[in-house]
């Protein structure tokens, strides 16, 4: 305290000493370093996602358009009878109508090569039109249909012209005809509605995701109907009723374990129990949803418990203090206040379930099914298993479709997570 000489203590508190200045500089540097580590991490993550999405878009974008050809069909009455329009010789009708515009293709071989430009399903497409409207028999009408996969790829430039003929699926002769069609403005590349409206097909130009989307929807519906009420009920019991003790600890550890079990194990369980023991129908969204709900359940339970814990005790006390019974406290106050958190957790759980592949493979949801399921008891595929099937197919068209399907799946996932984020922001309550 005296002003004669600074004591040791006050020397230690000399903020302007070189030692102190050095420390300040070092501390600020450390702050900046920590910030840079974070930025680097985020940059890496963003870069990886950009590479993923970028490569998918690069390989999948042209599946969002589909090459179509239009030509005039003559439904020769000698080949179709009005009494049984579904039994006509549509193969000949297609060949004769399509080759009529190319008088140079005379040999059967040339005609076949020319007809190969059309999708292999062309006779059935025309048959369906005629069956729907038998008055077309004996008349001429314009029809637009997809070209076959090699020509779709050719039009999109995936199959280049400059490779030797024997190394491509499109012959030089066919290229001349195709160029003639282009010159006649008969080739169009509209948005590929078939990708969303068609179910799976052997032919890439006709294969779509409708079956997989509907199958995934039904599976998620079953999954939601099981895991949402069961998850909430379990969480409410654990959080509000169960006595804290050894048993509740064991239960908690096991629920957390359940969340960490690899999904393929749940698939095996579904195969062994649901399909083999209970004899439920295989490949169906019902069983798929049940297996997925096993995976979603722990996510929902954990999220719900966290949301219930976050409800401030003052609200419970307020309700208890005027004589609300336990169920009234829970149903009137705690659950409504926890609901945004619960729904967020549920949506994230559902998004996980949507992308889950392994359990669905084991219960047979990777079957080849050419029509969307009409209900939860009909065989179906799901989006991730459809991707799995297409990725396994050798045709060029399926490479692009696989990427397109992944983009569609990621689109759904982003949409679901966005809803979760928006809901959390919207209903978040602060005390």
């Amino acid at each position, binding site marked *: 305290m005296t002003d004669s000489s600074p004591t040791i203590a006050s020397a230690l508190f000399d903020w302007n000493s070189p030692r102190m200045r050095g420390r300040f500089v070092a501390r600020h540097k450390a702050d900046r370093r920590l910030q840079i580590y974070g930025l680097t991490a985020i940059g890496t993550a963003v870069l990886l996602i950009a590479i993923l999405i970028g490569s998918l878009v690069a390989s999948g974008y042209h599946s969002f358009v589909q090459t179509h050809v239009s030509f005039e069909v003559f439904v020769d009455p000698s080949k179709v009878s009005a009494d049984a329009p579904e039994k006509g010789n549509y193969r000949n009708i297609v060949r004769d109508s399509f080759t009529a515009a190319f008088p140079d293709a005379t040999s059967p071989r040339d005609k076949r090569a020319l007809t190969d430009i059309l999708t292999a399903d062309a006779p059935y497409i025309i048959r369906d039109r005629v069956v729907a409207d038998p008055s077309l028999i004996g008349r001429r009408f314009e029809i637009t249909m997809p070209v076959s996969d090699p020509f779709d790829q050719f039009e999109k430039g995936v199959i280049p012209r400059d490779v030797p003929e024997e190394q491509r699926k499109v012959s030089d002769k066919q290229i001349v005809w195709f160029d003639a069609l282009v010159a006649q403005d008969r080739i169009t590349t509209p948005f590929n509605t078939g990708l969303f409206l068609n179910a799976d097909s052997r032919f890439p130009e006709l294969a779509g995701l409708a079956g997989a989307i509907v199958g995934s929807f039904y599976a998620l519906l079953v999954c939601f109907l099981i895991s949402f009420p069961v998850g909430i009920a379990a969480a409410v019991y654990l959080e509000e009723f169960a006595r*804290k003790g050894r048993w509740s600890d064991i239960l908690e550890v096991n629920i957390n374990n359940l969340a960490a079990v690899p999904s393929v194990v749940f698939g095996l369980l579904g195969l062994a129990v649901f399909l083999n023991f209970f004899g439920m129908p295989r490949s169906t969204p019902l069983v798929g949803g049940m297996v997925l709900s096993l995976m979603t359940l722990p996510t929902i339970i954990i999220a719900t418990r966290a949301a219930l814990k976050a409800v*401030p005790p*003052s609200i419970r*006390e*307020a309700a208890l203090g*005027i*004589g*609300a019974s336990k169920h009234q406290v829970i149903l*009137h106050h705690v659950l409504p206040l926890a609901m945004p958190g619960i729904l967020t957790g549920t949506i994230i759980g559902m998004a996980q379930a949507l992308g889950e592949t392994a359990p669905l493979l084991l219960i047979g949801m990777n079957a080849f099914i050419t029509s969307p399921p009409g209900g939860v008891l009909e065989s179906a595929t799901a989006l991730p298993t459809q991707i799995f099937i297409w990725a396994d197919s050798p045709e060029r068209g399926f490479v692009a479709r696989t990427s397109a399907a992944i983009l569609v799946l990621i689109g759904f996932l982003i949409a679901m997570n966005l809803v979760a984020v928006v809901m959390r922001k919207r209903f978040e309550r602060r005390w």
Partner: protein
Amino acid sequence: MSDATQIAASAPAPVATAESPQPTAVAPGTGAAAIKILARDVNVFYGDKHALKHVDLDINEHQVTALIGPSGCGKSTFLRCLNRMNDVIDGCRVVGSIKLDKADIYDTSLDVVQLRARVGMVFQKPNPFPKSIYDNVAYGPRIHGIAHNKADLDEIVHRSLERAGLIKEVHDRLDSPGTGLSGGQQQRLCIARAIAVNPEVILMDEPCSALDPIATARIEELIDELRENFTIVIVTHSMQQAARVSQRTAFFHLGDLVEVGDTEQIFTNPKDGRTQGYITGRFG
């Protein structure tokens, strides 16, 4: 049961606390009041911790009883025994007898839901439900099924808000959220919510500790008015508040009930050295 009648029969006589080393004199005047709550040898344990030790305390009808003492002395714990709010705390055990109008509230035949309707509570921090002002007050009558129709319910809500001194401020916005009111208004809303089920006793756990002095003064005025119709037990850290609003004061220290008596006597002529030390500000 016979024990209960015996104690009840002797109730009008002044009851001294057993724990205090010196016998606590009960000032004249209190003896005339009827005893609403009779606590005998109340012990509370949190796990192994003996939080409240052998407390004997009477709460008189239509009086304000203040519980004072330093933090952790057990006054809130005792308050929460009176409507069994301690039941919801894990590991909390209450031993002893607490009788509300001669019936043991810890008896298994007594419904805790009904008890809490008879013994209402107002908390330290205003805790209105995140609902409208109307729904906040109507909640109690609704869950107990008191009102037969909308008109009855409207009347209960209006009367409760009136008795809580809030009606003038909120009569034109009963549909706006209760959480949008100021702190003092929220606390009066909580009081209105508590009195909407017409309880006999209102427990208040430091009701003014989160409020500014003006809001505190309004609540204190209100407590004085409510005394006419309700029996009030209030826990407070403010000795001035205890002196202003209460007729009887009980001083707790380290889980013991040190001294209980008329507020005037406690503040002017405390019998126990610890009480004297606390009210003169030497500790606590």
